[in-house]
């Protein structure tokens, strides 16, 4: 597969790993921001190739994991109404709210549909004029332009039965929250390559300067991640703190201008509570007033006000610490015992790229012991 297989080449990976081993002289702690990168690291066993002095911690770049419980409760409520067709990405289906997940709502008779693209939901709105189509707009900046376009199209086609439950989150504020936290040990970042494909990476430069951390925009194939780590380690060993771009085949410093213009037209920054972490200012997106008609939270506010749902997290869930890189999933007492993919306490155990799920799935464990 072109532009995929070349970056899964075994001998190139060995070369990169050797070079990293050659360069590392002391312990470093680096964080890969994006859950997709976590997934690749675990799927391809990349940490097996890295020297022990290098510690990888997994970041909060899993929009599924950080979607606040309250929003999931709202999604479940909307999905349970007969007139609604609730559209979601597969990732969100099993994430528990304060009591139920969308999967539970579907099992109870809710019309919940897994879609690949917001455009699929738009098509449903056109073919079902008698139903209300609500989309769970989850994702980082990578996904926001797609939803922005869907809303614009809905407006152009004069569809009155299409709306979004907006849950978009932004990466730089989350990274800043991690960097400014008192116990922060992260010394370098692999930034999210597809987020930066859309946004560019200029906004990371002040972070690198202010906190004196190197940041390397990195792709998602094994060789991308190894090359990104190599570039990061080189900076760390040389005492530099700059923003560099590994993912040159897709990322430009200015990003995708058509996409950012579209986002600016439809969305504006808003406060957002991150599940397990708490509220981070200006870290989410909401629809601009001109597009209020497509905002499900506004459209259905009266009905949603009566929603049951305490919006409370299970007290035994330590996902917040995991998402900030302060706790490895295997260090959580509930891991694999009280908390499993079948009965998750929180989101990272059920999200396909949540750190807890990745550890559970790829590392396996027998009798509670992790190998």
């Amino acid at each position, binding site marked *: 597969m072109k532009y995929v297989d070349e970056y899964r080449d075994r001998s190139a990976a060995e070369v990169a790993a050797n070079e990293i081993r050659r360069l590392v002289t002391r312990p470093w702690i680096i964080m890969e921001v994006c859950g997709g990168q976590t997934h690749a690291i675990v799927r391809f066993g990349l940490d097996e190739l890295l020297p022990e002095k290098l510690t990888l911690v997994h970041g909060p770049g899993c929009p599924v994991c950080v979607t606040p419980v309250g929003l999931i409760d709202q999604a479940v409520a909307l999905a349970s109404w007969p007139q609604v067709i609730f559209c979601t990405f597969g990732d969100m289906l099993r994430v528990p709210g304060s009591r139920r997940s969308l999967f539970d709502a579907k099992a109870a008779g809710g019309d919940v549909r897994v879609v690949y693209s917001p455009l699929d939901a738009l098509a449903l709105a056109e073919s079902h004029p008698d139903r209300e189509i609500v989309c769970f707009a989850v994702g980082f900046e990578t996904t926001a332009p797609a939803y922005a376009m869907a809303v614009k199209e809905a407006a152009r086609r004069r569809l009155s039965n299409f709306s979004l439950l907006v849950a978009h989150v932004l990466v730089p504020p989350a990274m800043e929250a991690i960097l400014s936290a008192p116990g922060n040990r992260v010394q370098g970042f692999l930034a999210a390559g597809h987020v930066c494909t859309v946004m560019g990476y200029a906004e990371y430069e002040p972070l690198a300067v202010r906190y004196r951390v190197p940041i390397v925009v990195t792709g998602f194939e094994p060789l991308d991640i190894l090359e990104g780590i190599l570039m990061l380690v080189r900076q760390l060993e040389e005492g530099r703190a700059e923003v560099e771009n590994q993912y040159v085949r897709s990322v430009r410093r200015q990003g995708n201008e058509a996409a950012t213009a579209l986002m600016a037209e439809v969305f504006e920054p808003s406060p957002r509570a991150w599940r397990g972490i708490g509220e981070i200012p200006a870290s989410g997106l909401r629809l601009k007033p001109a597009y209020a008609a497509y905002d499900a939270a506004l459209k259905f506010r009266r009905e949603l006000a009566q929603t049951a749902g305490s919006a409370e997290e299970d007290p035994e869930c330590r996902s917040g610490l995991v998402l900030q890189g302060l706790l490895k999933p295997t260090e959580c007492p509930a891991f694999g015992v009280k908390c499993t993919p079948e009965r998750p306490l929180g989101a990272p155990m059920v999200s396909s790229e949540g750190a807890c799920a990745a550890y559970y799935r*790829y590392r396996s464990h027998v009798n509670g012991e992790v190998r």
Partner: protein
Amino acid sequence: MSDQGSFELSCPLPTAERQTIALAHGGGGRLMQELIRRTFLPAFDNAWLAQLHDGAVFPVDAGKLTLTTDSYVVQPLFFPGGDIGSLAVYGTVNDLAMCGARPLYLSAGFILEEGLPIETLTRVVASMAEAARAAGVAIVTGDTKVVDRGKGDGMFINTAGVGLVLQGATVAPQRVRPGDAILLSGDLGRHGLAVLSVREGLAFTGDIRSDSAPVHGVIEDLLANGIEVHCLRDLTRGGLASALNEIAAAARVGMTVEERAIPVCDPVRGACELLGLDPLYVANEGRFVAFVPESETCSALTLMRRHDVSRQAAVIGRVTDADESAVVLTTVLGTRRFLDLLSGEQLPRIC
């Protein structure tokens, strides 16, 4: 067929007065008899069914019999490379083959939803008849029930099958031994993706057709040629990874598998990458794994590759000494990870 010379899928008698399934079709009365005579009998066409008795009676050679059953609830009913009918026949035929048996007779139970177009039923039944002919089995008894509109997803089918265990064959997970070679009969993921490709919200095109097919021919060939087959398992829901884990657990052995030895065709790869699916967990319908002593690997592969359905047969790993019942995958990079069971259905993802 109609006089106009156009190909009509509905039966030759005029059906203008009834085009959809009604509750009465399952009621045991005149309407049900009509359905049996017009739709099922002509398609399945055998002496047992024609008797319209409560069950089918047939003689068997001395030896052991195998009995298996499966229910089919696939949505949508029709997909590239097959439909719920052909699936229902080949699936049960293959389960019999996995026991080292020659498939002989099938039963077919239908649960139809009120409102199902009769033309749809006729299409499915015709497909079952063709599959039965291709597999050399007869559908000798059946049942029809109808449920209220909204309670049935169109159509559910259950097939049970009887087969005669082939001479000397003892095929079971308990026969698997450390050192055994793990053979895979062909490439992965075609069925699961063929079904997805026609599901609302995920549609795509490309040369992906279900691999649904009968495999008893190649099994019989292996056994008839004296290959010491320890275990067989067809890969259905949950894919290769689930089948290997089930056998590892049942046989209490470990396994090691080479990712780069596992064939996956290009469009399936592309679809899996795009939708975020792992081909090792995607459903197949005409693929199986075979466990044979290492010394028989070459002979087994040669035999398998003589058949269309297993042209791409390959050795993908081996059984190890470790008794942790773990399946370990060596990735394309040479690193190792566990190939675990999934907790639920694999879903397309965007993250």
